[in-house]
């Protein structure tokens, strides 16, 4: 069965309203506006049925300019697909004062290192076997309402402290507002501090974060450097706040590691290879069965001990690239793979075509015959999809 889902006219109008401020009307002298529009068409196989779907995403960013010591940004997202939604992923003010910098509002802080797997990202958590849009430029882009203090220590080092009243923000304006408007008890607050230092030619990062909402202490260490290839390592402990039983200490440790290498080929071509791993030493190292297998990947359920993210990017020219990306769950032998070209044909315009597939048995993390309605949150991807799209930034 092929189901065609046209965009409802009312929702298209909603998006038009969103984009109105970014039409060619010049922004104020001290405001810079940019717009990013992405359109996808997808032919997919999901739950044993064929599906035709479309998605239109738009992002409007308004940034302050002119004042060298104050920065502000308001970012609005809108998308229309199965339904329509609005979001404010960023709304912040940054102020530079002598010897320190303050950030107030909703934005992202990138702690640790890693493109997909990063044990040092103790704020947002970058260890889950995500099954999101693998074609995205940034696979981890969560933001949060926060107050942060940044203290530079010379040219290469700094300290940063952060307080999060609400934890990582929910996607969608309504959910985000509901979280912000709800009363917050002191024991639900989250916050931490990190230091970034230069260690020879490497960069060492050490930090601590505690979240009352998630009930955990999270100290971590991260290292980034170069030894034949670029590498990154991170280790974190997720220790329960309330009288942690020591016999469970082995479950607290999480690790991530990554390697990257770029090789230039004749004719201006290149090949970039990346391999990242997330390791849960106390996770499941044997394939789960039955309901336990179906629960893997859901929040709070046991995870498998190892997840991998390999990526190969063949740069055929400076504007044409062929990407191969995969999320692999070696313990149950399943994977989500994506392959296809992207072409930056004109300034700001990128065309792309990808094929993605879930490769695994019915009780694997990535299931070929998954029933989307029964899939864990964030895992309801089609088992096979052809995605054609375009992105335009102006």
């Amino acid at each position, binding site marked *: 069965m092929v189901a065609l889902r046209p965009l409802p006219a009312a929702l298209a109008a909603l998006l038009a309203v969103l984009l109105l401020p970014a039409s060619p009307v010049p922004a104020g002298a001290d405001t*810079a506006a*940019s*717009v990013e529009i992405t359109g996808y068409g997808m032919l997919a196989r999901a739950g044993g049925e064929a599906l035709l779907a479309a998605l239109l995403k738009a992002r409007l960013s308004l*940034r302050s300019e002119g004042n*060298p010591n104050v*920065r502000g940004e308001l970012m609005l997202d809108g998308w229309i697909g199965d339904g329509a939604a609005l979001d404010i992923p960023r709304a912040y003010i*940054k102020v*530079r004062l002598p010897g320190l*910098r303050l950030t107030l509002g909703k*934005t*992202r*802080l*990138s702690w640790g290192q890693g493109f997909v797997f990063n044990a040092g990202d103790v704020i947002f958590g970058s260890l889950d076997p995500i099954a999101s849009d693998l074609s995205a*430029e*940034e696979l*981890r*882009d969560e933001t949060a309402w926060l107050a942060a203090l*940044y203290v*530079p220590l*010379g*040219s*290469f*080092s*700094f300290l940063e402290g952060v307080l999060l009243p609400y934890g990582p923000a929910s996607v969608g304006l309504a959910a985000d507002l509901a979280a912000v408007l709800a009363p917050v008890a002191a024991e639900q607050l989250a916050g931490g501090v990190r230091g*970034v230092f230069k260690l020879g*030619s490497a*960069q060492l990062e050490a930090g601590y974060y505690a979240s009352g909402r998630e009930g955990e202490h999270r100290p971590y260490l991260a290292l*980034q*450097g*170069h030894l*034949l*290839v*670029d590498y990154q390592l991170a280790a974190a402990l997720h220790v329960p706040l309330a009288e942690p039983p020591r016999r469970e200490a082995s479950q607290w440790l999480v690790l991530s590691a990554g390697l*990257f*290498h*770029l*090789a*230039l080929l*004749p*004719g*201006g071509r*290149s090949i970039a290879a990346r391999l990242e791993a997330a390791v849960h030493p106390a996770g499941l190292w044997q394939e789960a069965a039955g309901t336990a297998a179906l629960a893997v990947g859901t929040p709070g359920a046991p995870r498998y001990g190892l997840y991998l993210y390999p990526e190969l990017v063949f740069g055929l*020219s*400076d*504007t044409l690239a062929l990407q191969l990306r995969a999320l692999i769950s070696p313990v149950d032998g399943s994977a989500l793979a994506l392959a296809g070209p992207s072409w*930056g*044909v*004109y*300034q*700001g315009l990128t065309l792309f075509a990808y094929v993605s597939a879930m490769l695994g048995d019915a009780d694997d993390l990535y299931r070929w015959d998954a029933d989307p309605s029964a899939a864990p949150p964030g895992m309801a991807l089609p088992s096979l999809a052809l995605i054609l799209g375009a992105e335009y*930034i*102006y």
Partner: protein
Amino acid sequence: MNANSRRPLRPALAALLLLAAVSAGAQSAEQILKRLEDAQRFRTQEAEGTLVITDRFGSRTKTFQSYAEGEERMLLAFTNPEEKGQKILRLSGEIYLYFPEAEEILHLQGAALKESVLGSDFSYEDLTGEESLLERYEPRLLGAERIEDREHFVLELKARKRGAAFPLEKIWVDAERYVPLKAEYYALSGKLLKEMEVLEVKSVSGRFVLSRVIIRDRMKKDSSTELRLGRLRLDEALPRGIFSLERLSW
């Protein structure tokens, strides 16, 4: 500048000129290279500019603002919508990148330095040169050429160390203003890798500055990057602490 306007001197005439120069106490290759570097060395430089990157599908324009202090420190911030807020910091021979969407700082090392800067014919490695040309290369005076009615020294530069981005370079230096007119960059095998041509020289505060330069990557078909400098301020005080991770992520 058109190719026909370049009239290489006949070898005999060139030899005569060189002889005359030598007899007049003219300079060695080292002295020419040092004067070239001195003429292009500024205590500080603040500029707004444009990169026009051309390939077989057309051109893309990137705008930027840059700050530099001496040979070792540079901060470059892109201002065009596609890369707005992306920055490159060069400090003590190291390159750091900042991506505002991810709020992430990347320390570029190893092979990643070979990556092209936003698809241009500059690589990050090209930005890392902080040693002087004389420290990196052994120069040899090949002769002189009169191009567009101006006298130019022709120098050959051989890398003193292995592993240089370009083991061999050839450079044409204006004999009066000591600015380069063009340069060729070769691989160890003698293969031409890149060419640079100066399209415009501006006089700023009594100094000659390269304000339009085009780089052609001979390894890529129909590929060029033109650098145009607009507003330019030389030897004026820069904001304090601008070359730091703090300013990179601002």
